[in-house]
C-alpha cells in the first residue's frame, strides 16, 4: 500500500484538482487508512467506517474544483470526514462502545521518561480497560468526543484539530479539558476511587 507524507498527498490533490483523476486515485489509496481509523475512533463499526471513508472520498472528488492548491489535504479530508461522521451519528443515534473493536490493548507502560502517568500505580492503569474507556468516550457530548479523538487518538495538533472541528484552538482546549473531567467522572467508581 502506497505511503505518502503530507506534502506528497497535497501534490496529488493539486494534480487531481487540475483534472488528473489518476492522481486522485493514488491519493485515495494513500489516505484511506487514516480516514478509516478516524471513523473507527468515532465509534463506528468496521463496515460503517469503510462507508464513511468511501463517502469522504466521493465528496472530496466532487469538491475538487474548489480545492486551493497548496492547502493541507489531510486536514481537508478530515474536515469532510468529520461531517460525514456527524451525519451518520445523527441518522443512527448510536450508543454504547461500538466500533472501536480493540483486539488486545497495547501495553500501557510508558516508554519515554518524563511522560505523564509514569508514577501512577500499575494496578490503576491495568484496571482501566480499553473497553471501559471506549464506552466512556461514547458517553461524551459529541464535540468533546471529537476533540478527544482528534487530539489523542489521531494525534492531530491543536491547530489541526481546530481546523477539522471548525472552531478556535481555545475552544478545542476547553472541550478537551471538559472531556477529561467527564471521563474521570464516568470511569470512577461510586466510592470515588479509580476502578
Amino acid at each position, binding site marked *: 500500500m502506497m505511503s505518502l507524507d503530507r506534502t506528497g498527498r497535497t501534490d496529488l490533490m493539486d494534480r487531481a484538482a487540475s483534472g488528473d483523476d489518476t492522481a486522485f486515485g493514488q491519493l485515495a489509496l494513500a489516505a484511506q487508512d487514516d480516514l*478509516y*481509523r478516524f471513523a473507527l475512533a468515532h465509534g463506528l463499526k468496521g463496515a460503517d467506517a469503510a462507508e464513511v471513508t468511501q463517502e469522504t472520498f466521493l465528496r472530496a472528488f466532487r469538491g475538487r474544483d474548489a480545492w486551493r492548491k497548496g492547502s493541507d489535504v489531510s486536514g481537508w479530508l478530515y474536515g469532510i470526514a468529520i461531517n460525514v461522521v456527524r451525519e451518520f451519528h445523527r441518522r443512527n443515534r448510536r450508543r454504547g462502545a461500538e466500533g472501536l473493536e480493540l483486539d488486545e490493548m497495547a501495553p*500501557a507502560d510508558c516508554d519515554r521518561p518524563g511522560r*505523564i502517568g509514569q508514577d501512577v500505580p500499575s494496578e*490503576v492503569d491495568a484496571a482501566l480497560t480499553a473497553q471501559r474507556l471506549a464506552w466512556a468516550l461514547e458517553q461524551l457530548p459529541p464535540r468533546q468526543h471529537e476533540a478527544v479523538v482528534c487530539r*489523542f*487518538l489521531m494525534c492531530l495538533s*491543536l491547530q489541526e484539530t481546530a481546523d477539522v472541528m471548525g472552531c478556535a484552538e481555545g475552544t478545542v482546549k476547553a472541550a478537551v479539558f471538559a472531556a477529561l*473531567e*467527564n471521563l474521570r467522572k464516568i470511569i470512577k467508581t461510586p466510592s470515588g476511587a479509580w476502578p
Partner: protein
Amino acid sequence: MSEMEDRELKQRYGPILNGLEAMGKDLRRRTCPGIAWQTPQRGNRHWAVLAWPAAAAAVAAAVLAAMFLLAPPAGHGDNAPVAAIAEPHEDDLLVMEMLVREPAQPATSPSNDELWWLDDAVLNDAPTTNLGEG
C-alpha cells in the same frame, strides 16, 4: 508548577491519557479494507464507484428479506403487539444521572493559560517534558 501540582495532574489524568495513548496505538494497527477507487464516469448518472459496497448491500438486502419472510405474523391495527421497551440498566442510570447533574462544561471554564498542559509541546513527543514543566 509545583511538585505537588504535577503529582496531582498525573494522578488526576494519567490513567485516562495512558489509556487513550494505548487506544491510539491499537488504532494505528487497523487498516482499511481495500477500496479500489474507480473514477465516476463523467456524464453517467449511474456511478459504479466501488464494487464491494454494492455486493455487501445486496447480501444485506437478501438477509433482511429472509428475516421478513421467516418472521412471525404481526398483529394488525390496534391489536399490533407493542415492542417491549427495555428497562435501562442501573449503571446507565447512574451515568445519566451523573452527566445530568454535572454540567458538560465546568461552571467556570479554566482560562487558556491554565490549560497550558494541553498544548502540543507538552502532550506531543517531548521526552524531557512532563506536566511539571512550563
